């Protein structure tokens, strides 16, 4: 933990120390003090692609808004490129790019006009930093006279990214850029991020899709306002503390119920084509489980030892 180092020291692109945030939620029946973030600490190095991964309502957007100086934390300190989010928010606003969760574009302006407005807001021009967005912009350029509201989800996402990049930010904050976008566009988007990383831009990205974790340098798993783990995707998977089996048979629904009846099964989750199972007693062999399952009249039982996915890790940590 680097938590007690001087946060203004200019070594990390993003440094977030013990950040907490609470909301007062006004429900008609009671006043709820909702905890949005609890003691969040992490650092992001320059040029790193850092993923914040967790379901809706985990606190991702609140964290991004604190990092981008839009809201103030109740406790803790945050610095972006050495600037404090409270005191130096003006200089931070010159240096970061931000793409909020809903792809903020002017729906009634054309692709080109949107880009131009955002370029001018940052006191630059499309030409000046064209090299930075060229890769992405080329794909939407044929539609530059089209209004943003008439673009498909994937194209809106690309345009929003161009708008966030046009002023050559040092740090790019992307809040759920792939939510609601189909798998093909999602993949294209991550390819673009990889190329941006090569331009030495620090990127923080949040996503609810666990399968995108492996595309980040490091990830933080977030649930209920707290980080469960911060590490490289590989380390997180390697640290999965149990042996993981994938089990399938001809009757998957029944199999799930039967597996849960077996006392030695620690956890059992359905993963579509197979169920992922961990055991309480590690001495059990694959064949022993197979014998048990055949007693439950399962046919074509297949059991394999597999490597955990981020999703397995996430469920294990919660």
């Amino acid at each position, binding site marked *: 933990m680097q938590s007690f180092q001087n946060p203004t020291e200019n070594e990390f692109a993003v440094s977030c120390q013990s950040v907490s945030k609470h909301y007062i939620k006004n429900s008609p029946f009671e006043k709820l003090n909702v905890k949005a973030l609890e003691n969040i600490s992490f650092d992001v190095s320059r040029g790193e692609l850092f993923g914040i991964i967790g379901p809706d309502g985990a606190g991702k957007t609140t964290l991004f808004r604190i990092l981008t100086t*839009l809201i103030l934390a109740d406790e803790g300190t945050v610095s972006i490129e050495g600037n404090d989010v409270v005191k130096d928010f003006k200089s931070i606003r010159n240096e970061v790019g931000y793409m909020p969760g809903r792809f903020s574009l002017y729906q009634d302006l054309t692709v080109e006009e949107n880009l131009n407005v955002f370029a001018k807001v940052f006191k630059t021009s499309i030409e000046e930093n064209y090299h930075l967005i060229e890769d992405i912009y080329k794909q939407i350029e044929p539609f530059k006279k089209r209004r943003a509201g008439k673009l498909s989800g994937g194209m809106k996402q690309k345009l929003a990214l161009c708008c966030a990049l046009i002023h050559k930010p040092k740090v790019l904050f992307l809040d759920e850029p792939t939510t609601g976008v189909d798998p093909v566009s999602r993949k294209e988007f991550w390819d673009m991020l990889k190329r941006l990383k090569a331009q030495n831009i620090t990127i923080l990205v949040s996503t609810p899709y666990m399968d995108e974790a492996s595309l980040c340098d490091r990830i933080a798993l977030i649930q209920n306002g707290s980080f469960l783990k911060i590490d490289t995707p590989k380390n997180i998977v390697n640290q999965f503390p149990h042996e993981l089996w994938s089990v399938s048979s001809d009757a998957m629904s029944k199999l799930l119920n039967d597996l849960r009846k077996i006392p030695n099964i620690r956890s059992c989750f359905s993963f579509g084509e197979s169920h992922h199972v961990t055991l309480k007693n590690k001495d059990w062999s694959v064949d022993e489980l197979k014998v048990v399952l055949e007693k439950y009249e399962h046919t074509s039982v297949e059991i394999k030892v597999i490597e955990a996915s981020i999703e397995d890790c996430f469920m294990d940590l919660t």
Partner: protein
Amino acid sequence: MEQFLTFVRKEFYHIFRDRWTMIILLVLPIMMLILFGFMMSTEVKNTRFAIYDPSRDAATQGIVNKISMSDYFIFSGYLDSPEQVEEVFRSGKIGLVIVFGERFYENMMHTGDAQVQLIADGSDPNTASTLTMYATRLITLYQQDVMGEMKIPYQIKPEVKLLYNPTLKGSYNFVPGVMGMILMLICAMMTSVSIAREKELGTMEVLLVSPMKPIQIIISKVVPYFFVSVVNLATILLLSVFVLDMPINGSLGLLILISLIFIFVSLALGLLISSAVDKQMVALLISAMVMMMPVMMLSGMMFPLENMPLPLQWLSQIIPAKWFMIAVKKIMIEGLGFSSVVKEFTVLSSMAVILIAASVKRFKYRLE
């Protein structure tokens, strides 16, 4: 500067590309004015009138002819008795009844005590007062024709009696009223809605996380609506003068000046609303309910303020449109100069300063 201009241009795109915004901004004011205006003047034109005339002499005949020949009135017939007056009003076909005194001609020429009574339906005060005003003028004209140079003033003293609403108020109220309403509507509603829209879309988040200063965002939001309001002001004035035959008796420059101040007040109100709300819907409702209703109810446009309970009268003091309407009436209709509207100018200007300061101060650098 370029940043600012791009932003203003963007704001104009928003306006020009949304059909409904265009309709609200440019067509609605014209429609409102014409509707209010013609609702009144079409009724005034070709109004049927009846006569109760016990004298039946040359003078009464002359007056009836004079009135019948004008655009405004159509002679409908004689009544047999004064009791018939109520009856013909109830039938709804008659807009005005003229009752002459006995021996009218003689009185007019000799005693100077000729009596004529104009009776109109006061449940529609605007129409009633216009009708009586026109009839009075026609009678005066007749009198001038007959008397010529004799210069005996006021031989015929028309006595105006309004049924159903004896303390009539409101003639010509509608143009200043509609002006106030339209300017308030466009400035306050459109600015607050356009800022709330950016919040809803999430673009405000992006703008906040940018080097753009809040004051720049505010001003670039205000400029386009200021222009549109000026266009509207011009349209309203042109329409009032050339289509609705409203006089501009006072100084045009003064009228424009007070209108510009009022526009600033309304824009600032819009900004203030938008700093408090995040949803277009709420901005719209607040502008409509909290701003429009008091403007219509408490500005004296529809109901005379003098008859209201005291608390409402106090409340009306803080309604900008009330001060604007008083000033416009004084300048436009009464033709008074600057010295007579100093109070209204001062009140509106201080409102503008306070509101703009408050809305700039309240504009948030962050989301909460």
